[in-house]
């Protein structure tokens, strides 16, 4: 541990530390960063932080907080210090993520067609059919190239032994990739010298890769396909990202009210009249995407879209009904799913998961609520969670009631000691828990932007990294050498 007062609060806990090994020696990939950091004066670091914050605010890289009447925009807190992943670590992640998503796509096709995996009893039929995100409407629908999930944002965490494991598969409308790109731009701006000392894999081509992925989904009869990004609109917390991605790809950003369906063809309303749309990168959830098929009270969707989709006249990324595979109870079966379809052992492991629908698991979990994390299966964004060790008796009783009322809706996992990365907090360098969300594109080929979004639980001791709950992020470097 450097003998610098700024590191005075840096304690090496039981969690894996990204920067230091167990005896407090800097890991090799962090040495240059640490040298530069120690050479910086506190004023200098403060100035860089201020410059970074200003860059985010001026570019309007903000998110809207739900439940705030003012619709106030906040910047997603950005931590100055990059997180560094070595080339070897990344190679394993890349192989593991590719394997996982390949199996998931095979699973989705199977579930919505012959259901082999269900007949063979590998995944319980009830579990699939009782999933809130299972869409009957997709039964027997041909999905072009059988690519259901073309864009995934898998949440990984690093355990005490340094292994990356999968915490969640986000297979519906994963967000955050714009922060990954913006973080890189800002880091390059505030630490040009440091960035230059490392050989970092570039991520700036993400927009092109995304467009290429969408192109591979285009209906075969579309000679010169038209692509759009469908956003719920400016009130959505990720609106900035929707606009950003549309711009990166050079395609139109549309809202539901810009589109209409006539004779199972989707059109957008332009100043030159109606124009046919072939591929929709939709950032609207299944529930809201077509008021005729799903929630009738949705104003965000396009009436008749499902019919156009079933007719094969338009492609959606991601397909409808992918949420069945990121249900937190199905998650427990992903290793079995990988073995079933690919006859391979999973490269990336799962976190141990208790299914509360199962009697034995439930009995165990109810006895150990104070040490486990309980999650609602269909939720995301850090909502609907009980973190046992940080909970009150009252909260535990509340969850006990919720579980008993609907056990299928919950899973439990051990409380993980997420790895910690060095962060710049109040003029000091302190460790904070982090996760990692790489973005996987699945089209003609699999493209994974090197790194991903490292989310940081900025509150000391906190394990929740979600932006809605006091989380921030930092740039993530994957080294070329």
């Amino acid at each position: 541990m450097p003998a610098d007062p700024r590191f005075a609060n840096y304690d090496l806990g039981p969690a894996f530390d990204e920067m230091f090994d167990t005896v407090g020696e800097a890991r090799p990939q962090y040495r240059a960063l640490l040298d530069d950091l120690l050479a910086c004066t506190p004023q200098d670091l403060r100035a860089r932080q201020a410059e970074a914050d200003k860059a985010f605010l001026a570019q309007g890289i903000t998110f809207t907080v739900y439940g705030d009447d003012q619709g106030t925009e906040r910047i997603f807190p950005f931590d100055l210090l990059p997180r560094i992943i070595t080339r070897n670590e990344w190679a394993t992640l890349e192989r593991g993520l590719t394997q996982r998503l390949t199996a998931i796509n095979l699973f989705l096709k199977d579930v919505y067609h012959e259901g082999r995996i269900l007949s063979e009893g590998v995944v319980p039929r009830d579990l699939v059919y009782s999933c809130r995100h299972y869409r009957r409407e997709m039964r027997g629908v041909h999905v072009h190239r059988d690519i259901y999930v073309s864009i995934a944002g898998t949440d990984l965490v690093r355990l005490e032994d340094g292994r990356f494991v999968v915490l969640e598969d986000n297979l519906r409308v994963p967000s955050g990739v714009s922060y990954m790109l913006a973080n890189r731009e800002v880091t390059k701006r505030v630490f040009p010298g440091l960035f230059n000392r490392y050989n970092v894999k570039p991520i700036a081509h993400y927009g092109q890769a995304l467009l290429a992925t969408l192109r591979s989904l285009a209906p075969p009869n579309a000679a010169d396909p038209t692509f759009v990004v469908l956003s719920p609109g400016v009130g959505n917390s990720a609106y900035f990202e929707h606009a950003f991605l549309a711009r990166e790809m050079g395609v139109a950003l549309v809202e539901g009210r810009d589109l209409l369906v006539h004779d199972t063809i989707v059109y957008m309303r332009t100043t030159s009249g109606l124009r046919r749309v072939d591929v929709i990168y939709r950032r609207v959830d299944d529930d809201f995407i077509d008021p005729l098929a799903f929630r009738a009270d949705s104003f965000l969707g396009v009436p008749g879209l499902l019919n156009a989709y079933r007719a094969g006249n338009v492609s959606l990324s991601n397909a409808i009904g992918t949420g069945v595979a990121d249900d937190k109870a199905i998650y427990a079966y992903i290793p079995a799913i990988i073995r079933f379809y690919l006859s391979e052992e999973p490269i990336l492991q799962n976190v141990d998961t208790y299914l509360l629908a199962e009697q034995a698991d439930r009995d165990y979990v109810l006895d150990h609520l104070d040490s486990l994390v309980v999650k609602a299966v269909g939720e995301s964004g850090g909502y609907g969670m009980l973190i046992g060790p940080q909970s009150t008796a009252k909260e535990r009783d509340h969850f006990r009631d919720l579980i008993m009322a609907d056990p299928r809706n919950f899973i439990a996992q051990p409380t993980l000691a997420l790895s910690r990365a060095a962060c710049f907090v109040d003029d000091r360098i302190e460790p904070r828990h982090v996760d990692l969300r790489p973005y996987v594109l699945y089209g003609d080929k699999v493209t994974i932007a090197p790194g991903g979004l490292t989310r940081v639980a900025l509150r000391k001791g906190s394990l929740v990294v979600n932006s809605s709950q006091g989380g921030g992020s930092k740039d993530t470097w994957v080294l070329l050498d």
Partner: protein
Amino acid sequence: MLLSRVADSLYWISRYLERAEHTARLVDGAVDLRLGRQSTSGAIERLYGSLGLPPAAVEGQIASFADAAYFDASNRNSVIACITAARENARQVREEISSDMWQQLNGLFLRLKQMRADKSRVARTHFVSRVVIEGVHLFQGITDATMAHGEGWQYLQAGRFIERAGSTAALLDLFLSDTSDPAEMPTPLDQVEWVALLRSCSALEAYCRHYTADVRSERVAEFLLLNAEFPRSVRFAASATESALLAMAQHSGRRPGGRPERLAGRLHASLDYAQVDEILGDNPHAYLTGISRQCAQIHAALYQTYIAYPIESALSA
């Protein structure tokens, strides 16, 4: 290819910015007039009235009047309301405008919010006006320098000039028309007040260069209404509106001669050949409200053609 919704937002960005600038100019002119003289023959009241402020604000101090015109968000014409609306529209079309444009507009918005929170602002009304006017000018400059002068840009142009033609005509109307009780003799405005009007349109210097410093009402009217070269005159604005609408028709692949460009062309041509003595001698109020009405018609035609057209007609086309 331009989404109708996006065209709509672009159009309103510049309409709202033009309106904010117009308000800032008027306030600046009114404050200036008030500071220079104790009593006037009603020009100040006319300026105040054109801002849609309640009489209470007119009665009060200069500072509080200006404050209401700048920062009262409940008044739709206040500067803060217009800038907020422009920014809201820009936020909806972030992907269509350049980052520089967004940053300038967002920066102006944040600056105004900061000023509103600053207690010393009321003593510096001129300063606030300058910030707004310069902020809007900078936005226009950045727009012209960083955005492709394509279809979307034409909607920005149209919004700006339709708004300008309408608001300049309305302002002239306030000064030229006799709206007082017909039983009373109308008090003629004096030269200082006509100067204030010119100043409110940033037209004083240009006027003097054209007519010398001899400020007369019919010349002021002629300059603000019919001058072909001054960018804030009604004729100039009508000409620019027509150009934008012609370009839109071309971009969208429509045959020329559609309703929007015909209406704009008619307004432009009528101003090209109008005589100021005839207008003033006849019924200036009717003439000027006629211009405002034509601006409203152009706006409606633009909407029916490009933005809110019926789907059935688009499918059969």
